[in-house]
Structures are given as structure tokens and as C-alpha cells.
């Protein structure tokens, strides 16, 4: 199918909306649009960050997931207590593949699940005493932890426990950073508010304690913010920055530590990859400590080159030369990747539906391979995310916010993309429909995808998925039209 016109895209949206009752139709219509590159502001064409419609299948998570799973979870030398019943932490344990270096259970704890395992009596009598006790237990069993966070699950807010008081008291007793995070799942409309709450907790409980700590800085200190090191993403980004002469003093939060977070207010520039989950703390540091921040994109060689130059702009000639050197060094490498895979992928059409930054950031990487993104959307994006998406997407392409299971399936049936990139809940549905699929939250057990090294893996993975011979076997031989068997059967 060739590219759709604006009318066709709009007609498709109308057609898909038809099955809804009137009220639901009106509500969902605001979240779906045909892209219009001439717009500066997304608020004119799309509504986002609203409560999902009851009765539809949404793909969102909760505030606890945003805080425990995304922002705090990867901080490797701290222990994050999933405070409340056991399920929230256990079912989400280690699912995001935030890689880290360390000995798990000794000095790093990312893939472990710590929980206060609430029982009925804790709900009835309150869990503060239990929290106090488990913090002591943690101290005894894992003395090398650098700090503890208390990640509230739904019941904590409902029964009104005072986790702040317990945290303050224990922080004093143990002389440690103990961070209470009020990220109960019911707050906000999606995991997005959890990111915000987690950011605020860093501001209130980490920075305040770290003030006055000694730090030897250099003029080239930068931080990598909003990179969760999924499959090693932060590492393949970091080496590029270091090669051009910068010093990365902190990774937020993939493979990150408490000390790195504490040092961040000493940086010269904060580099922000995932805007959605960490813009709040970047804005705070700009205001309070005068550290500028900038967004960058390390997906695909075109965007990487752009980003490296943009970053170098902020520094002296030494770094600018460094950036050019890095760009020149990796050029033959990525050109070989493009030469190999582009002929196999050219012209293929992709639909994305992911979280924080990927619905817009990965577009460039696909384009480098000659592919086209024909539909994209965010689970929990806000207006500012869509503002940044309009220019990246082609005119009249589909944009869907908080898409429902039904809408996504219908769009796919009509648009017929060659590849879909979304989450695990969508994976098997689309694979059964015979469409190649990549799980783009945790890179489908692969990665890294950031940086030049990541691009090579990205290209290979896309080829592996798209050109996999299994897709030809989805239709059984007797159903293939014109085959001798189908004629015989009829």
C-alpha cells in the first residue's frame, strides 16, 4: 500500500471509531490524528495525558511502575523496597533489563525484589512498624547498600501510613539516605506521574543531603540523564561522549549509583535522552544550580552526528574537534551496516507504539535504513512530547495517543505495516496476525540500540525479524490461493 493521504488517514480514524458508543467516540477522537507538519503545537490536533476510558484495553502502567520500575529501580547500589503487597514488585521484577556492573546481592541490587509483603494485619494496624523493621533487616543482610528507597504501592496511600516519618527517623539512626516515594499506583493517569514524583523525591531527599560534599570537577563534566541502560544503551552512548573528550560524571539511572546522583549538581551540562521521565529534575537543576540541559538523540547515525555536534557546540574547540574525530572514526563502520542492511529493508513501513522517547527518537534510525515510520504514538506522552513528534513524522501519518487494543489492531489491519514495534502485550497478537514484530521496550532481549554500536545491532535485529522465513509459513499451504491443494480441497 502506498502512503496514505490526509483524507484517507482521517477516514480510517472515523471508521475505527465507529464501533464506540457516542460518548466514547467523542473522547477517543481527540486522541487520534493525522499528522500535520505545518502545526507548531500539538494541542491543536491531539489530546494527551488524560485518564484512559473505562472499558477499553489500555497499555499503560501505574505511578509505582514509573517510579520503582523506571526512575529509581536502576540505581544499582540502593535497595528499593516495594512497600505494600508482594505482587507489584514481584511481577515487574527485572523486566526492563537495566544492565549494570556489580555483584548482585552484595553491592548491587537492581534485579532483586525487596518487599514489605503486606498482610491483612498490616492493612488494619498500619505498616510503619514493619517498614522500620525491614530497614533494619536490610541493613543487617546487605550492609553494602548505599541507601534505601521506599516505593509506595496503592495501599500505603489508602491506609495513610507515614513513610516520611519512618524514613527520617531511620535515616538519622543509620546515617544513610532513605527516600520515601509517594508513588502509589492510583496517582495520576499513567506511569508518567510516577516519573514526576520520583524526580521530586530525588530533589527533596538526595540533593538536600548531598550539599557540601566535596567534588573535583573539570570543565568537561557532563551527565547522561534519562538513559536506563537497557541492554547496555547507556554504555554505548557514554563511550562516544568520552571519546570526544567529555567526562561523564553520572548516569541516570541505568547502571547509576547514589553517589553519581549526588554529584550531578556539579556537572557543566546535563544531557537528557528521555525527556518525558527526567525533564523535571533537569529543569530543577537548571533553576537551582544553573546547569543547562539539552535533549539529544543517539538512535541512528544521522541523529547521532547531529547530537554530537550539538553537544560539542556547548564546549570549546577541543571538544568540537573531538566530536568530528568521533564522527569520522565511526563513519566507515555505520556505512558498512547501512550497505549491508539497507537493500534488505528499503521501503519497509513501520508502526510504533511505545513509551517515553522512542515513538519519536527511533524514527531517524529507521530512516537511515531506508524504512518509513507510518504510525506512532505514546502510552503516556504529554503535549510537549507530541510537539516534538510532529516534525519528525511524515505528513498525514497516523498519530495515536494511549491507543486502545482494539484501535491498534484495526489500524494495523488497514495500514498493513511491514513491521510493528511495541510492547510485550501486543507482541503475540500481531505475530499471530502474521506481522513481524519487535518488542521495543526492552529491545526484545537484545540491545543496546543507542550509539553507533547500538545501530549495528538495531539494523541486524530489524533484518532478522522482517526477513525471517517464518512469516511465509503463517498461511498453511492449502490456504495459499491458487495452490494445487486449495483447488483440490474445494
Amino acid at each position: 500500500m502506498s502512503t496514505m493521504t490526509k483524507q484517507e488517514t482521517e477516514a480510517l480514524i472515523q471508521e475505527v471509531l465507529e464501533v464506540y458508543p457516542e460518548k466514547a467516540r467523542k473522547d477517543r477522537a481527540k486522541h487520534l490524528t493525522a499528522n500535520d507538519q505545518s502545526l507548531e503545537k500539538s494541542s491543536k490536533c491531539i489530546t494527551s495525558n488524560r485518564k484512559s476510558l473505562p472499558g477499553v484495553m489500555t497499555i499503560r502502567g501505574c505511578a509505582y511502575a514509573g517510579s520503582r520500575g523506571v526512575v529509581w529501580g536502576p540505581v544499582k547500589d540502593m535497595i528499593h523496597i516495594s512497600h505494600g503487597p508482594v505482587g507489584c514488585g514481584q511481577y515487574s521484577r527485572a523486566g526492563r533489563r537495566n544492565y549494570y556492573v556489580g555483584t548482585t546481592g552484595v553491592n548491587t541490587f537492581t534485579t532483586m525484589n525487596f518487599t514489605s509483603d503486606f498482610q491483612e494485619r498490616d492493612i488494619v494496624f498500619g505498616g510503619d512498624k514493619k517498614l522500620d523493621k525491614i530497614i533494619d533487616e536490610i541493613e543487617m543482610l546487605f550492609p553494602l547498600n548505599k541507601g534505601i528507597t521506599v516505593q509506595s504501592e496503592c495501599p500505603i496511600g489508602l491506609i495513610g501510613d507515614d513513610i516520611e516519618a519512618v524514613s527520617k527517623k531511620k535515616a538519622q539512626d543509620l546515617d544513610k539516605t532513605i527516600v520515601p516515594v509517594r508513588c502509589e499506583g492510583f496517582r495520576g493517569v499513567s506511569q508518567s506521574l510516577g516519573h514526576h514524583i520520583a524526580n521530586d523525591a530525588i530533589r527533596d531527599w538526595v540533593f538536600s543531603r548531598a550539599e557540601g560534599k566535596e567534588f573535583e570537577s573539570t570543565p568537561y563534566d557532563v551527565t547522561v540523564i534519562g538513559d536506563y541502560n537497557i541492554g547496555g544503551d547507556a554504555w554505548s552512548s557514554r563511550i562516544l561522549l568520552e571519546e570526544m573528550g567529555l567526562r561523564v560524571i553520572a548516569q541516570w539511572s541505568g547502571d547509576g549509583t547514589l553517589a553519581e546522583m549526588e554529584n550531578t549538581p556539579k556537572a557543566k551540562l546535563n544531557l537528557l535522552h528521555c525527556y518525558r521521565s527526567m525533564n523535571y529534575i533537569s529543569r530543577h537543576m537548571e533553576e537551582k544550580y544553573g546547569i543547562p540541559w539539552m535533549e539529544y538523540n543517539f538512535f541512528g547515525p544521522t541523529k547521532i552526528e547531529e547530537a554530537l555536534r550539538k553537544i560539542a557546540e556547548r564546549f570549546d574547540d577541543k571538544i568540537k574537534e573531538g566530536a568530528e574525530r568521533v564522527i569520522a572514526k565511526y563513519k566507515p563502520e555505520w556505512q558498512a551496516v547501512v550497505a549491508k542492511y539497507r537493500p534488505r529493508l528499503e521501503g519497509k513501513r513501520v508502526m510504533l507504539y511505545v513509551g517515553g522517547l522512542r515513538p519519536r527518537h527511533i524514527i531517524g534510525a529507521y530512516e537511515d535504513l531506508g524504512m518509513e515510520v507510518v504510525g506512532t504514538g505514546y502510552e503516556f506522552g504529554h503535549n510537549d512530547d507530541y510537539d516534538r513528534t510532529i516534525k519528525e513524522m511524515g505528513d498525514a501519518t497516523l498519530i495515536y495517543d494511549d491507543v486502545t487494543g482494539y484501535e491498534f489492531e484495526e489500524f494495523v489491519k488497514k495500514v498493513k505495516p511491514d513491521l510493528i514495534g511495541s510492547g510485550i502485550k501486543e507482541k503475540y497478537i500481531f505475530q499471530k496476525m502474521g506481522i513481524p514484530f519487535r518488542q521495543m521496550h526492552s529491545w526484545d532481549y537484545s540491545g543496546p540500540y543507542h550509539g553507533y554500536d547500538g545501530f549495528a545491532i538495531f539494523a541486524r535485529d530489524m533484518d532478522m525479524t522482517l526477513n525471517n522465513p517464518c512469516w511465509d509459513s503463517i498461511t498453511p499451504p492449502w490456504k495459499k490461493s491458487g495452490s494445487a491443494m486449495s483447488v483440490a480441497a474445494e
Partner: protein
Amino acid sequence: MPSVMLRRNEEGTLLFYVAKKDLEETIVSVETDTEDAWGGTVELSDGSKYFIEPISPPPAFPTTLRFNRV
């Protein structure tokens, strides 16, 4: 009375950011913008207007200030 964070974007224009409302717009005009005061009615690129009593001396950006809707 939204609490607004003001900062300059890469081009140097002032941005008006209200986290709670998901509002990030550029400021197109400021009533008083002189050497010794900043404030009054500010107009945003989406046409909405906000008011703040002029502050003198002008604040250093980025900063967070409280505005009233006009």
C-alpha cells in the same frame, strides 16, 4: 495562581512552563521589560495572557514565579 517556571530555550526566547498543566509556550510579549523591571501582562504564543506584578530588579532566568491568569 499557577506557579510558572521561566527559562530560555536554545534560541534565547523565554519559555513559560507550567508542569501541572503540561503547558510549555514561548512568551511573545512582556508588558514591562526594561533594565530595572520585568513583569506586567505577558502574552504567550497560544494567545493566552498571564499577569505578574512587575519585579525589580528583573529576575535572573531560569526561575519560578507565580502568575495570575488574565
